[in-house]
């Protein structure tokens, strides 16, 4: 499932992952490490909601 950052609107897509933070494609949002932050605005995981 995709998740959207409530602060800036960035959408985390598990099919794409997040290369810059070493998250390969296929990692679900709830599997992301707690240290992962929004790649656009730096918000923590708690600022995300289902998209």
């Amino acid at each position, binding site marked *: 499932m995709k998740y959207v950052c*409530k602060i800036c609107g960035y959408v985390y897509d598990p099919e794409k992952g997040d290369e810059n933070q070493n998250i390969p494609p296929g990692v679900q949002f709830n599997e992301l490490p707690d240290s992962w932050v929004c790649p656009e*605005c*730096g*918000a923590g995981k708690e*600022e995300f909601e289902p998209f």
Partner: protein
Amino acid sequence: MELIRNIFCIKAIDWDIANFHGYSTPFGTTYNGYLIRGEKNILIDTAKYYCENEFFEKIENILPVDRIDFVISNHAEMDHSGLIEKVIAKSNATLICSPKGKENLEKHFHKKFEKIIAVENGQILSLGNTTFQFFHTPMVHWPDSMCAYFIDKKILFSSDAFGQHFAGAEFFADEVGSDIIFREARKYYANIVNPYGAAVRKTLAAISGLQIEMILPAHGLIWRKPDDIKNIVNKYSAWASNQSGEKVLIIYETMWGSTKKMAEKCYIEAVKRNYKAEMFNLDIRDISDIVAEMPEAKIVLFGSSILHGQILPKMAGLLTYLTGLRFEKRKAWTFGSYGWARSSFERFEALVKAAGFEMPCNGYYVQFVPDENSIQTLIKQLKSGIFDPSQQQEHL
């Protein structure tokens, strides 16, 4: 203009702008660069590309542009970054920005800057005989935004935060009436910063430990009086908490005057109940001026006629705009008139809800022209549905 010794405001004044991508700017606006003259000459932010002549002439009045050593870019948006490439081409200065700023400036200019320092949040950097500390302030107002604190002089270069769209001969907020400048600061916050309240709270926390003797924003006037600094920081804190205000706003768009008639009745009833009420006709008022009042609002009444099975387009535009601005904790009610497509109001109510308003009850809609009975029903529904029962009725 030398603000204090060796610190200059390089203000590019956009006298002609009346509409800043949809935000009405009746006073025009300014793009404020700041120049620090010293062992190293430092320019903080630039201006829109078409302000080139004025901007460079104002710098040259102080020192030759090619003597600038550092350019601090607090924000990659083009009204502040528009002349960065030209300043660097003339001076070979080193660019200083946040890591996100580096990324975004490269995407704007389609090039890599050779001499660039991407500063971390909280990083302290000495440039000649001056020392800065940088605070990342993502989403106040873009992901790349940061503030630069000039430690030696206790001055905060705040970028878009605490700014106003206000052009004039003045440089300081205390040179104009405080009602005017705080109103413009509120309009700016409501239209530009409001969606990012959580980010504003983080920014305020980051700067709360700093001694600040002057706030130098990238638009409008500078805050220098201790009371003004305290007030604007407190206002930002209140606005960022999204608390509702006290006013009733009646916002409507009308075709044949029926919705207008209902709006005027809503206004009178609100005043009778001793609310501070304001009425806005979307055919006449600009949406950014309406949004400027939203931080003060407790209840918002939206009225529209129905055209081709839809609410009127300016109302639809306002609701789209408000959905992005994410005001919270305000109650709303809808009203309007229709010819035959009454069901269109279901979508109207859904749009108002989607814009973040609490709707305690359905709206009231009248076919064609409201008669005395429908006006009485409107009043009854206002009383029982949206107006606070504890709000006392008083004589006009």
